């Protein structure tokens, strides 16, 4: 392998890792909700779309950037809260599968609502981040991706701090650990769920802005859940650390596979490669890399 080939591998790897962070960003929204209420919230993708579309529509109507951000955040909080109140709370105690399908239905409703409210146009979203690549030792690195990774890291750190040091965070962790026990010691589950959905709305907002800037704001934005799902499976549905590591692994291996494995089968394997990889890992560790291995109680 020549020096240039080596550089190229590194470049693909770095690009993949940075993409992986973007996947993690979406995956974290899933984890937050799954950990506390056992729901795999398929509507997370539509929430990302909704956030981006709301923000960009506000900006296009001449509302200043910061104010738009604030309004969008408020809207996302309201949306998260409404979903929790109107869809998930009435379904409490149903099987996880039922809840999952409800969120699947919800994703279509949110998409439809977004279209009714904001129309069907495709928008560009300019966050004012310059995306000219810079070179480090012969490797091109995207400044946008790097910044996105930094924002994602900051968000994870912020969320961790929130859940580690605040009262509600403590309650969150208790609920994540054991719902019944948490209930028994008098934690108010609905309030925690409300908070978690708010947090998920916030994550959707951040993901929506960054992904919106990457892809443009359009309907297929909600398809990024399909990138997040293998990340979740690989890293475990209930682990934020898993979502991050999973994202990095998927991002890097998917890009390397496309470049080095793709040519042997004609390319375009990224669509299913991540799923296949996640599957292989699962066959060894059925509850993901960072999932808790549960002892079956009988």
């Amino acid at each position, binding site marked *: 392998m020549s020096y240039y080939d080596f550089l190229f591998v590194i470049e693909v790897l770095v690009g993949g890792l940075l993409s992986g962070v973007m996947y993690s960003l979406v995956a974290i929204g899933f984890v937050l909700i799954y950990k506390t209420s056992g729901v795999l919230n398929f509507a997370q993708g539509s929430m990302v779309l909704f956030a981006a579309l709301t923000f960009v529509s506000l900006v296009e109507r001449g509302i200043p950037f910061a104010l738009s951000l604030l309004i969008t955040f408020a809207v996302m909080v309201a949306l998260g809260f409404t979903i929790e109140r109107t869809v998930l709370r009435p379904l409490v105690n149903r099987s996880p599968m039922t809840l999952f*399908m409800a969120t699947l239905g*919800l994703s279509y*409703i949110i998409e*439809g609502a977004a279209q009714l409210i904001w129309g069907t146009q495709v928008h560009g979203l300019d966050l004012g981040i310059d995306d000219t690549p810079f070179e480090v030792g012969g490797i091109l690195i995207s400044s946008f991706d790097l910044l996105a990774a930094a924002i994602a890291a900051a968000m994870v750190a912020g969320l961790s701090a929130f859940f580690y040091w605040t009262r509600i965070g403590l309650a969150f962790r208790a609920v994540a650990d054991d719902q019944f026990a948490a209930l028994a010691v008098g934690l108010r589950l609905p309030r925690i769920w409300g908070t978690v959905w708010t947090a998920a709305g916030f994550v959707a907002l951040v993901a929506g802005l960054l992904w919106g800037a990457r892809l443009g704001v359009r309907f297929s934005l909600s398809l990024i859940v399909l990138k997040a799902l293998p990340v979740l499976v690989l890293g475990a*549905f209930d682990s934020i650390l898993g979502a991050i590591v999973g994202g990095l692994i998927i991002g890097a291996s998917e890009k390397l596979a496309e470049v080095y494995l793709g040519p042997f089968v004609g390319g375009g*394997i990224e*669509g299913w490669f991540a*799923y296949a990889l996640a599957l292989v890992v*699962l066959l060894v560790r059925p509850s993901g890399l960072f999932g808790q291995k549960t002892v079956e109680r009988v």
Partner: protein
Amino acid sequence: MAVQALDAARLPVDWAKLVQKLALATALFVVAYGVVPAYASGYLVEAILLPFLALSLAAVGLNLLTGYCGQLSLGSSAFMAVGAFGAYNFNLRVEGLPLAVTMILAGISAAGFGVVFGLPSLRLRGFYLAVSTLAAQFFVQWALTKFGWFSNDNPSGVISAPHLAVAGLSLDSATGRYLLSVTTVMVLTALVWRLVNSATGRNFIAVRDNETAARVIGVPVLRTKLLAFAISSFIIGIAGVLWAFTYLRTVEPAGFNLDRSFQILFIIIIGGLASIRGAFWVRRSSLSSRSFCPGSAHSCSAACSIRAFST
């Protein structure tokens, strides 16, 4: 079925109920083979009944797996695609293959795929399994697009329905295609009905309701799951043949995308998991409501599904 017969022997025979059932079956036959072919408009047959029959059959298949056996699959339309492209190729490459054999072979191909993609179910449960079935969805679509052989190297990657005939009788007309569909659906649904009421069907339910207990009392859990994947995929595969041959006539792999899988899933949710009849009436009502439904039909069914849960 035999158990039911014994049950009936033990209980006093409920003649009224029996007569009612017989009358219902007769009425169904008269409507399906008499009234519809004679009086239904082209629109009703081509735009409502044909997709209704194909998707209902797919829903029956998925219901066997998800509703009865408890294995959530998000990749149903991949198996429809395998069925459709399988039938196309069997018909194309084997001279003079009867239509029924073509369809059964297509179903068997889909069943084979189902078993392969059902293998993870032996180790994975719940969402981990559901997400892994997405691998089937994306892989099949990729493979059908990637390898031109599947579409007989058609530059547009599409397949077209062949001339349809049974025993020399052409079924290419709208009525002919309807009769083919309705017969296929009725036969398969009847077989599924018998299956779910047999010991095999009870094994499915046992695995769904309590896998550990099922294993301990001797239900062959692994074999039961794979069987559920196989039979379910077989039926969904044949539904794919109907979709391609009797309804759309020319299809591309993209027609069997994730949205289609979700659509089938919605049908069984709204119709009620583990309810064969549900698969039919939901499909019917969602079609009839479509023309009045302003937003996406998906949002509509989604809304219905959420309502169905809350009640």
